């Protein structure tokens, strides 16, 4: 049995006339860190959002940890296994950092208040902001908010973490604190699918790179392959733009 935790087969998705995904196939192995790069509008975020069914696919199959994403009851099962971190954090502004991390544990995982809080404190400690447990999102910097968002996703003990441009809404000096948390996760063996242009993260943590453009995966390669010898012209163009 192959150890593919995410299998995306011939997935297509269009928004009206715009084709966001055109016959995309991608697999991610357990414990693997895959980074998706490419120009904006290329379908990277859509691909990620299809994996936990924030967008429904038009055709093709997605299987997450052996669960096909088809019937409604499966969608909730998959969502419980997959954590997602958004570009704009999407923290719940009416709840404190601690409550953001405990709420889903209590209402979805049915953990006790104390149990959920002890896990939440542990995770806030792990992402480096134990002292902000009682702060509201508006009182936190962008980097701190994003780290709370990561803790919130981790609290559900997901097997896969999806990151949708987690640092692109952050000020430069806050990017590192978020990337450090992500690097720790990668080292611990978390399966991660990351949409990001942080080449530092790519070099340090990625096992594989997928280059997406116009709804296709144009090239799949290793980090070394990407930086030394990109095969496709389109990849080369893109790299020359973001690396200078």
């Amino acid at each position, binding site marked *: 049995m192959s150890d593919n935790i995410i299998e995306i087969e011939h997935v297509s998705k269009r928004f009206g006339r715009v084709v966001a995904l055109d016959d995309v196939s991608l697999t991610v192995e357990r414990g693997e860190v895959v980074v998706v790069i490419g120009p904006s509008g290329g379908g990277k975020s859509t691909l990620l959002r299809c994996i*936990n069914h*924030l967008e429904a696919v038009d055709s093709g199959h997605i299987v997450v940890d052996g669960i096909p994403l088809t019937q409604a009851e499966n969608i*909730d099962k998959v*969502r*419980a296994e*997959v*954590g*997602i971190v*958004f570009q*704009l954090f*999407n*923290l*719940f*502004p*009416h709840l404190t950092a601690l409550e953001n991390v405990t*709420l*889903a544990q209590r*209402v*979805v*995982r049915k953990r006790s208040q104390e149990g959920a809080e002890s896990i939440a404190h542990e995770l806030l400690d792990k992402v480096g902001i134990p002292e902000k447990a009682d702060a*509201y999102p*508006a*009182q936190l910097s962008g980097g701190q908010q994003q780290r709370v*968002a990561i803790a*919130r*996703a981790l609290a*559900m003990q997901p097997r896969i973490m999806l990151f949708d441009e987690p640092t692109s809404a952050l000020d430069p000096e806050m990017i590192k604190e978020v990337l450090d948390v992500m690097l720790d996760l990668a080292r611990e063996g978390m399966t991660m699918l990351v949409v990001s242009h942080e080449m530092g993260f790519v070099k340090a943590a990625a096992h594989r790179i997928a280059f997406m453009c116009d709804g296709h995966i144009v090239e799949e390669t290793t980090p070394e392959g990407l930086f030394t010898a990109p095969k496709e012209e389109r990849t080369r163009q893109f790299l020359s733009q973001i690396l200078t």
Partner: protein
Amino acid sequence: MTLDHVVCETETPAQTQEAEARPLWLRFDRWWLLFAGVVFIVLLLVIRRPDPYRRIVVFLEDGIRVTLSITVVSFLFILFAGLVGGLGRVAKNPIINGIASIYVEIVRGIPLLVQLLFIYYASPIVLRDLGRRLAAVWPALSVRLIEIKLNPFAAAVLGLTICYGAYMSEIVRAGIESISKGQMEAARSLGMSYFQAMRYIILPQAVRVILPPVGNEFVALLKDSSLVSVVAVADMTRRGREFMASTFLALETWMMVALLYLVMTLFFARVVTYIERKLSYVR
């Protein structure tokens, strides 16, 4: 449209900042001046000219109670109707959405006065007719329908709830739609069901957004409750009409009725502002 605006606009930013530290009920702004002025006039009239003003107030007393209780009772039902209607309006299911939309569109297109008249005078006829038709199929229900007698208070509450429920649905819908889509996505991606996400994430945020318009609705309802006087409910307005009919003191009666409505609406507008401040949070 409502007094709430008057209250807010009378405070310039500088005054607001300076007074921010004091609790709202201790802030002596123009609202206090207006409220104290109106109460003072009422008291002055009642004490200095007990005939007819004290007589009017004593005569209206039951009516004041009816007006307040009909407003409060209806408002509780309206909040519930608005929640259900609002959730229906944002539902993706076309049947639920369709029913909610048709309800809102129909009710908003008919004057409240006509709705009240229909419910009190016309709907018993409809029910009686329905009862006769059902005689063969379901005798027990048929008898109940034929003998139905609408209690004026219940009819008034029903009419106000149906009408204001539609407006409240639109307020709730707007409140829900004002919360960014990312909130629902974040909640769903954590494994919450649609209703869990609504209950724990969307509605608590929407409530804070819609509180000002909901408060306005309460004050508007208090005023519109005067329309129930046409369906045999002895509210303040109806009591005023009765008093005038027996004494012909039109000016005195309607001035006192107007002043008493003003006292109530000013008071509740302030309560709404107070609750708003209490519920606001750092964003």
